[in-house]
């Protein structure tokens, strides 16, 4: 031993159990920070990637640019990439399809949301790329490498070599119009007006320069969504909101980390405080005692932090792997990159170290300030215990001697009690806040429903209303093909007026819209006008609506028998003043209520019809998840037909009726779509009147984005829940193991092991109950604060995740109880004399 500092190493070694517990605490905290960092970074990466996929990688653009603007931008030092597109002329392929070849420069392919499926981008003005579905409609059904005759950008027909195909877009197939691109002449700047897309050079502070560009040309548009994810939104408000949200989350984690480590350190110092006092009697200065504690902190940190980094990353990896194996099969592990960023590793290590020192600071001061006199008096523990009397009797006292002792123990040592409870509070609070936050992130960022799964659609080329273009047998056959999840008919929807009893209408609805609705009196009650949309849902659609059902039924027979419809009451009206969307329930119908519908929208007394609310859905299973300001209704065929009779038919037109204009085919996640594609191709070949819209590639990408998001979010929660539980176990067990001497004493005066166990279990439950309660309260408050920030981005109701949080509280209680059992059985097996001898 070369100096007194070696003492700290000796302490750590001798009290191996305590040191290991402390290191575990540090590992857990650092793991939490690094997991959150990695998760957050991957989440943003994922959202950014998605925004780029959907909107393109450009930062800003002009809808109407000319050569002058183009050259100005090209010479601007801040601009890195500059793409343009000149709209070309249509080439009519037959009566149905059109293709438009536009002229672009090479940068365009990098900046615009166009995606190559096969081949490459054009490299000269004789090459072209087009959408994959177009190939079979071009004369001679060319493949990659073949020539096709198209109207060039100048309107004159020319021959182009097809060098690549792009991923199909649904819109182009639905509209029977497709875009194709060829490269402009080298260096050629088009004359007239064209569209320009631009991206800044790397490293440019985008948000501060964007404004200067907005005035340079007409129809300026910033790529807002993508910029927001880059943290470069032109809207400063969004940046601020993001900063506040992530600041809150990270602050919470740092606070809890410091608290957890502090707890363990504090206990460890308290238990040794007599020895610190002894050192003081032989002449150690307070500074020397402090430095001993800090040395311990440093050693523990150096051991714990690197392991914590590994554990955090490993826990995430494991969570994601387990989820992939248990159903999310669409993603291959190799597709899924958990990014390791240097800043996350460095940041977590730094925060961990700071937390360790912060946590050691108070205990070190306490150790240094211990009075040497009290230490040498040597009468047991010198930690002064304040016993408070005269409070409300604890409910634990009803549980016999064990309960009475437990109640006394809890009150006797407030600081130990607080420390233990606090770690549970922190765990439950963290879980609650992150549960709330991730749930809302999912709501805001992914608009996911059954529509995501639709990979193919089939439409008749010419719509004939007299007979369905496809028979039920044909549809059943498609539905039974391997990999197919469902085959749904497409039907026209009808708008209607819905008269809502005043007490069923959310008063906020019209105040967001800043409108005053029409009202009427009927049978002595006041009704308010709203818009509604009635959709026809065939049996397949109704069946797959079940996961969204909040109340009622989706059974087609029952609905038809009750003359009932399904409704989605949640809407996202837009404030006409600031364009902000607010999510709310526009009505408060219950299952069994009657809807007063006027399909003719004529307000004639005899045009009103009544239908029953047969089921309430949380969101629309198909199409837009929430409508802006319409009550969304889904009717089975018979009900729809009945309602539809009231729709007036214009002279010379045929009634739209419950007429199927197409079908949608949804695929199972990760299923191979070869079989269904072959079947559809055979169908098209045998029935020349129909066409297929193949968006399988796009569907797969989008579904993948949504699933990735869910995996992130749930993986995140699993990690936080797991780390929280471990933290509770660690604190409760530390607390018990440090009280061995006391338990020995109780045994010595005649307490049985059973009574002892009962006492400790009751303490554990009590810790769990109080911790859960305060964790819930603080979690609720913090979630609400986050909600206030989030609703600045998008209006929404405050949805507190009660079920998840209550389960978490239950688990905390259980963990409190269970974690007592291990140490107790060890204590009961231990030699009584040894426990008594143990250094207090």
């Amino acid at each position, binding site marked *: 031993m070369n*100096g007194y500092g070696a*003492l700290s190493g*000796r302490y750590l070694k001798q009290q191996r159990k305590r040191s290991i517990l402390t290191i575990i605490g540090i590992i857990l905290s650092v793991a939490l920070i690094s997991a959150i960092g990695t998760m957050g970074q991957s989440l943003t990466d994922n959202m950014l990637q998605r925004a780029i996929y959907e909107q393109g990688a450009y930062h800003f653009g002009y809808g109407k640019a000319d050569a002058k603007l183009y050259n100005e931008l090209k010479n601007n030092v801040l601009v890195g990439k500059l793409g343009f597109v000149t709209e070309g002329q249509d080439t009519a392929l037959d009566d149905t399809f059109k293709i438009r070849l536009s002229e672009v420069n090479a940068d365009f392919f990098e900046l615009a949301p166009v995606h190559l499926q096969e081949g490459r981008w054009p490299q000269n003005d004789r090459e072209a790329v087009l959408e994959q579905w177009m190939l079979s409609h071009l004369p001679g059904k060319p493949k990659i490498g073949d020539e096709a005759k198209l109207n060039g950008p100048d309107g004159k027909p020319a021959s182009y070599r097809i060098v690549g195909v792009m991923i199909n877009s649904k819109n182009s197939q639905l509209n029977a119009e497709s875009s194709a691109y060829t490269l402009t002449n080298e260096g050629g700047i088009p004359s007239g007006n064209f569209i320009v897309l631009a991206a800044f050079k790397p490293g440019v502070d985008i948000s501060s320069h964007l404004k200067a560009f907005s005035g340079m040309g007409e129809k300026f548009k910033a790529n807002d969504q993508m910029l927001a994810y880059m943290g470069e939104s032109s809207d400063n408000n969004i940046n601020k909101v993001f900063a506040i949200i992530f600041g809150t989350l990270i602050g919470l984690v740092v606070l809890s980390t410091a608290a957890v480590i502090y707890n363990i350190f504090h206990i460890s110092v308290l238990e040794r405080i007599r020895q610190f006092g002894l050192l003081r009697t032989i*002449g*150690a*200065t307070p500074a020397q005692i402090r430095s001993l504690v800090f040395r311990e902190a440093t050693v523990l940190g150096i051991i714990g932090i690197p392991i914590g980094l590994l554990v955090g990353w490993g826990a995430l990896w494991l969570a994601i792997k387990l989820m992939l194996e248990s159903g999310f099969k669409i993603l291959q592990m190799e597709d899924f990159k958990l990014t390791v960023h240097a800043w996350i590793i460095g940041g977590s290590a730094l925060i961990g170290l700071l937390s360790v020192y912060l946590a050691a600071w108070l205990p070190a001061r306490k150790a240094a300030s211990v009075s040497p*006199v009290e230490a*040498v008096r*040597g009468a047991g523990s010198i930690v002064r215990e304040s016993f408070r009397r005269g409070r409300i009797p604890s409910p634990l006292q009803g549980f016999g001697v064990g309960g009475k002792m437990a109640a006394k123990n809890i009150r006797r040592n407030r600081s130990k009690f607080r420390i233990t409870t606090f770690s549970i509070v922190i765990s439950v609070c963290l879980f609650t806040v992150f549960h709330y936050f991730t749930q809302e992130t999912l709501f805001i960022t992914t608009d996911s429903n059954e529509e995501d799964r639709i990979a193919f659609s089939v439409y008749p080329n010419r719509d004939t209303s007299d007979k369905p273009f496809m028979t039920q047998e044909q549809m059943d056959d498609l539905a039974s093909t391997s990999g197919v999840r469902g085959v749904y008919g497409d039907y026209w929807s009808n708008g209607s007026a819905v008269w809502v009893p005043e007490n069923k209408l959310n008063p906020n609805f019209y105040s967001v819209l800043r409108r005053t609705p029409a009202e009427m009196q009927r049978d002595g009650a006041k009704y308010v006008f709203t818009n509604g949309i009635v959709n026809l849902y065939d049996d397949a659609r109704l069946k797959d609506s079940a996961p969204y059902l909040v109340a009622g039924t989706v059974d087609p027979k029952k609905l038809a028998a009750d003359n009932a419809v399904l409704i989605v009451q949640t809407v996202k009206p837009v404030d006409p003043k600031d364009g902000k969307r607010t999510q709310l329930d526009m009505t408060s119908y219950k299952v069994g209520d009657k809807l007063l519908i006027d399909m003719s929208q004529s307000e004639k007394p005899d045009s009103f019809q009544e239908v029953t609310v047969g089921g309430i859905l949380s969101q629309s299973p198909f199409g837009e998840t929430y409508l802006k300001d319409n009550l969304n209704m889904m009717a089975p065929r018979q009900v729809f037909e009945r309602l539809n009779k009231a729709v007036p038919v214009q002279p010379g037109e045929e009634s739209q009726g419950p007429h199927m204009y197409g079908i949608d085919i949804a695929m199972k996640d990760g299923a191979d779509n070869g079989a269904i594609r072959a079947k559809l191709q055979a169908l098209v070949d045998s029935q020349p009147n129909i066409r297929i819209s193949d968006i399988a590639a796009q569907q797969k990408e989008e579904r993948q984005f949504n699933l990735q998001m869910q995996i992130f979010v749930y993986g995140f929660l699993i990690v936080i829940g797991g780390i929280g539980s471990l933290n509770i176990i660690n604190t409760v067990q530390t607390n018990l193991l440090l009280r061995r001497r006391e338990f020995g004493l109780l045994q010595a005066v005649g307490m049985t092991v059973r009574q002892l166990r009962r006492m400790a279990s009751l303490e554990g439950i009590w810790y769990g109950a109080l911790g859960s309660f305060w964790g819930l309260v603080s979690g609720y408050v913090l979630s609400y604060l986050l909600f206030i920030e989030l609703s600045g981005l998008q209006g929404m109701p405050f949805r507190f995740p009660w079920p998840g949080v209550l389960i978490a509280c239950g688990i905390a209680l259980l963990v409190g109880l269970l974690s007592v059992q291990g140490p107790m059985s060890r204590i009961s097996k231990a030699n009584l004399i040894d426990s008594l001898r143990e250094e207090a």
Partner: protein
Amino acid sequence: MNVIEADHLSKKYGKDSTMVEALREVSFSVPQGEFVAIVGASGSGKSTLLHLLGGLDRPSSGIVRIDGEDLYALKERERAVFRRRKIGFIFQSFNLIPVLNVEENIQLPLLLDHRQPDKEYIRDLIQTLGLTDRRKHLPSELSGGQQQRVAIGRALAYRPAIVLADEPTGNLDSANGREVLELLKLAVRQYHQTVIVISHDMNVAAEADRVLRMQDGRLMSDTRGGSGV
């Protein structure tokens, strides 16, 4: 020359009705090389007096001078350093650092001062204490008598001016107690140290040069012992 001077030392605990006067106006002085025993019933104030002489506590009034230095005029940090260099403590419950072995426990005051111990002196000391073959043992591996000898070694390691011992034989059987007493007397003889011992043990009083008798916080008598050194 007096190594210890206590001048009108008083110590009060608590306030108003709960106030206890543990020490009332105690004055005495001890020249170098004297072996002094303080005796008295439990609660008579002997431990309080010892703590004040060692700079562990603060007097309510009065002055303590060790080697001419006013102990309570020093700052907290200075007093800790002073304690480390000038005062050696021995306690009834030994109070060794459980994670350090015999040799390390003895050297600790020097290490706290960032000084390399004088190896020869420490070896001599350990030999004198009869601990040579126990040098590398931890306190938990020693008997009570051996532990107390380590504590004496620690008190003497810095060759302090005074050694204060609080019931050093209280936890020992009579044979070990006698041995410890002999060692303390040896310290006086060999290193010219001043030793103050608190004890119930009449044997200790009988061995001392001088006996101070305490009662109710007051110094009742100050007598020269019979044996001498």
